[in-house]
């Protein structure tokens, strides 16, 4: 069977776009990372989405959809007064709250979501007083939360403002001592987080055997992130991260 070469371009283009369309229809055409956290594998909360797997690339809209928390509630908790808070990415929080005594970032949102939904998660990050107020308004605030967050509630953040699409801290926010902030930044970069690879953790002072013993898995490639190791082995990243951080020298 002969094929006229005049049809080649057409055949290629048709098959290419037909293939992409079919993959899209089957849900296989994914051009960005999943914005849905993994589910908790074991225990009383098995099957629920894990707040510990919320990532900096998630938007408030993604979290709202997954955890059924209104975007307005999330925006109020973190004092985000953007025109469209549903598109606000969590990774922007760190620059928004730059200079606070204790980092307020993705970990803070994970903690808020965990409190709001009664799911397990413990963070060492700061927690804005606005989020505490939202929990109180919703009748979710407990003594246990107050105890867990002791010394980590950032109550200086009184107002945030937006300038067009850019969200910035208002001048009225009390800035902490610069040296203190620098120390915090240093501390943040010397602990295990979502981007830390096994090699990074070893550079921080852990040994491969400690990492393997803590996670209970054998590490084949030291460039793999601790988060991916946890995900691949159905381990709760937040718990493993805390366990490894405690063993840091």
């Amino acid at each position, binding site marked *: *069977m*002969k*094929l*006229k*070469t*005049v049809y*080649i*371009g*057409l*055949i*290629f*283009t048709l*098959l*290419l776009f037909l*293939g*992409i369309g079919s*993959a899209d229809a089957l849900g*296989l*055409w*994914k*051009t*960005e*990372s999943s914005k849905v956290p993994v589910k908790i594998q074991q225990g009383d909360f098995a099957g629920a989405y894990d707040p510990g797997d919320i990532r900096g690339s998630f938007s408030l809209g993604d979290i709202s959809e997954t955890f059924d928390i209104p975007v307005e509630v999330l925006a109020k908790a973190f004092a985000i007064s953007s025109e469209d808070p549903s598109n606000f990415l969590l990774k922007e929080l760190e620059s928004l709250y730059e200079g606070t005594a204790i980092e307020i970032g993705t970990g803070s949102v994970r903690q808020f979501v965990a409190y709001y939904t009664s799911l397990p998660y413990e963070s060492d990050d700061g927690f804005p007083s606005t989020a505490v107020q939202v929990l109180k308004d919703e009748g979710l605030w407990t003594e246990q939360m107050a105890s867990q967050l002791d010394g980590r509630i950032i109550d200086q953040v009184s107002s945030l403002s937006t300038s067009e*699409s850019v969200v910035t801290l208002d001048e009225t926010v009390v800035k902490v001592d610069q040296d203190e902030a620098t120390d915090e930044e240093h501390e943040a970069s010397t602990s295990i987080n979502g981007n830390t*690879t096994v090699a990074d953790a070893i550079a921080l002072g852990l040994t491969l055997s400690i990492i393997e013993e803590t996670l209970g898995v054998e590490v*084949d*490639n030291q*460039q*793999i*992130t601790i988060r*991916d190791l946890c995900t*691949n082995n159905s381990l709760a990243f937040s718990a493993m991260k805390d366990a490894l951080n405690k063993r840091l020298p």
Partner: protein
Amino acid sequence: MSKKLRTISQIGFFILIGLIAVNHTLAESGQPIPLIGTASFHAICPFGGVEALFAFLRYDVMIPKIHESAFVILGIILFISILIGPVVCSYACPLGSIQEWVGKIGRKIFAKKYNHFIPYKYDRYLRYLRYVSLAFTVYLTTNSLKLVFLEVDPYYALFHFWSDEVTLGGLIVLAIVLLSSLFIERPWCKYACPFGAVVGLTNFLRIFKLKRNASTCIDCGLCDQSCPMNIKISDKVTVTNHQCIACNACTSDQSCPINDTVVLTAGKAKG
């Protein structure tokens, strides 16, 4: 007509991929062009699928920046290549197209000498360098779990020269490739392209093959002269050369002056 349609296809894909690259940048600033995809370049790069595949199979992790769509597009292109040859190289690849367009200047300057600067005794071995490029890239990517090829990728540099994501290595390689294109047709494709190495292998098993009917062939050599990859067609019955980019320039539809002598067919060759 076939040649014109191929040029239209090349221009179309060049513009489309360029628009997608620009639109991704625009989308990040909240102002995407309507109706044009906003996927990242890595998400639609079939070679990204090759780079990430082994790490995905071995460690069950996705290389950062690569997404599932890269595997899908790799699968589609391999399927098409097994059917009609690696037409992605000749009809769609923007890096291949721009080399061809720059090469037209070289052809005007050097006439018959163009594309024949490297002696065959060296050239035949240099053609295997792209397998070294492929093996090296996949090995390093699998072990580092990073897109190491990005550091020297001329394809990425071509469509991101304005962004801060472009690497100096990529720009240097791109400049070398474009300059070399003045002397050699598709130098990157011939000697270095790791993705060309992958799809080129489908020439051994493609369903529609290029076949020459020896009984009607007049040995004019026009098929050999038309081949951008310097493949000698005139001494073959079936073209299974790993370097063929399926441009079909050698066929009776294009260069060969005798009807039904060099054809694209799934059947047996005549003669």
